[in-house]
């Protein structure tokens, strides 16, 4: 332990101790609520609601998960969200990556002007109502396409990708390839993309998380419940308290009783809906960081 190593003044040791205590506090404050949800979701609801479950699960019960398995709303939402996320992320990358490549080419004369057009949209937008009316005119409301095509090019992600192409694919590489008769299409597909796995992961994951957590699109543009993504279903269960598909989760004479079970279901719903992200998170964490760094340090 370097903490007690020699050559340190007393004040430095106090400083390290303070940092240590602060770090532990921060860790607990962030991690405990997440941990609590996990143990509460597998504990007996009575013990949870009376505050007896604090550190370890008590009275093991999977009631919440059983309710979820019976609830078709969740599975429809899950299915929809997976479709929107997979297809949406694919379209995002299909539109963003080639554009970023083009904007990274020095010899492309229009790039300055086109970049300006893109960047303006980071600061200005038409606002909710004109956008909504446009979607209506395009007959995109109440279809799955409203999740896929609108705003499928995120300018921030575009800039990250372009910066990466600019910095990591040497100009000479294309010139050499061009000598051998390589076109831009071939160079992009066979050289640029394979060299850019890091940035494709970063941007792809940004898009993916965006689709998975998208609540707004469903709220504004979708009326048909069978098209609603998971987040809308979650809103109904977690926030509007419509926990049991047959009836309300609380209220009435049995309010307190029902609320306890409702909470149990809610803990389980939180876990089930966030699980995919929690599973991939540790593996992709370093990429997320990288994305912020590429996007920020440049500039």
């Amino acid at each position: 332990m370097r903490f007690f190593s020699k050559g340190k003044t007393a004040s430095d040791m106090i400083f390290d101790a303070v940092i240590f205590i602060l770090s532990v506090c921060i860790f607990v404050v962030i991690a405990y609520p997440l941990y609590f949800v996990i143990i509460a979701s597998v504990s007996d609801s009575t013990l949870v609601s009376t505050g007896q479950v604090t550190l370890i699960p008590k009275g093991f019960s999977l009631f919440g998960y059983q309710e979820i398995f019976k609830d078709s709303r969740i599975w429809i939402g899950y299915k929809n969200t997976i479709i929107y996320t997979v297809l949406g992320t694919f379209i995002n990358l299909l539109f963003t990556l080639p554009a970023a490549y083009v904007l990274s080419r020095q010899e492309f004369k229009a790039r300055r002007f086109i970049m300006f057009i893109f960047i303006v949209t980071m600061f200005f937008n038409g606002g909710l109502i004109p956008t909504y009316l446009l979607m209506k005119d395009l007959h995109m409301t109440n279809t799955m396409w409203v999740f896929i095509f609108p705003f499928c090019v995120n300018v921030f992600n575009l800039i990250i990708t372009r910066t990466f192409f600019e910095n990591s694919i040497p100009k000479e590489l294309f010139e050499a390839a061009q000598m051998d008769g390589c076109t831009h299409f071939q160079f992009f597909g066979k050289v640029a993309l394979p060299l850019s796995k890091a940035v494709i992961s970063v941007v792809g994951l940004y898009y993916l998380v965006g689709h998975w957590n998208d609540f707004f699109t469903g709220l504004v543009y979708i009326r048909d419940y069978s098209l609603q993504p998971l987040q809308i279903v979650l809103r109904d269960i977690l926030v509007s308290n419509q926990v049991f598909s047959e009836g309300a989760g609380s209220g009435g004479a049995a309010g307190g009783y029902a609320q306890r079970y409702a909470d149990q279901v809610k803990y389980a719903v939180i876990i089930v809906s966030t699980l995919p992200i929690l599973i991939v998170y540790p593996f992709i964490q370093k990429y997320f960081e990288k994305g912020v760094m590429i996007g920020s340090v440049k500039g």
Partner: protein
Amino acid sequence: MAFSNPETKKISGNMPSISGAQLSRKSSKLSSLKRDYQLWIMIMPAIAVIIIFNYIPMYGIQLAFRDFDFTKGLTGGQWRGFYYFEQFINNYQFKDLMTNTVVISLASIILGFPAPIILALIINQVIWKRSKKTLQTTVYLPHFISTVVMVGLLNVLLSPNTGIVGLLMKHIGLGDIDLLGSTKAFVPVYVISDIWQHCGWNSIIYLAALSSVDPQLYDSAKIDGASRWQTIRYVDLPAIVPTMIILFILSMGNVLNTGFEKVFLMQNALNLPVSEVIATYVYKIGIISNQFSYSAAIGLFNTLINFVFLLGMNFIAKRFSNISLW
């Protein structure tokens, strides 16, 4: 995001002049089009999407000055000038909406802005590599929880009868405050939970700035006998000041942009007097009640005030620190 924007420097870099001077302008344009046609094909989808979904609605902003006419489309209605803006300003809810919006976002900025800086400085001081990594992994995690789940989490944890925080508060004698349904608690709950969720993620950018500090500076500080605290004060802090200023300008430019989703989801009948903000009002008036022109005017009003704040802050920063967005 902040730093993506100073485009200009990169772009204005020298472009190799490929077209010779002897070529006439027209033919050089033609030849560059011929040479670059594949590039144009690759960028066209992105341009099309941006034009359709970003620029057409911008053109549609004129709806704020017109009546909406279903038969004539977005821009065909009768011209009404500032009628809808006046209607909003004279609305009895105007004062409350403005107050709520400004209070929520100012509180978010004042408390939420320093938090990631402090966090980054602390993380940067953790000397054990493994603990540092664990701490970082943990504090970034809540950022990926969706807003809906976040509000759901608040609902179950803060519930006065069954939630763990509610029970804890009862235990220490602070009971009977319904954190979710009170007008007093709404802003603190909103701001603190926001810090809890995003503070870690927002610290990444400062950690990046800190990691680029020249190690020689630390060495010379040590030789000069600086304590750890003095090193933070005189080496670390100056290193992140430019980042701080840029991010601060940008956050001031969003002063009227409270996150729609979270406010909307946290609203209930009890806290509505303090939780109705411009963004949620626009949604309710426009999408729910179909008063398109009126809500478009409110939206535009909001955008304009934000832009004025952005320009103002940028001007002040430029004046005093020579750091600005453009």
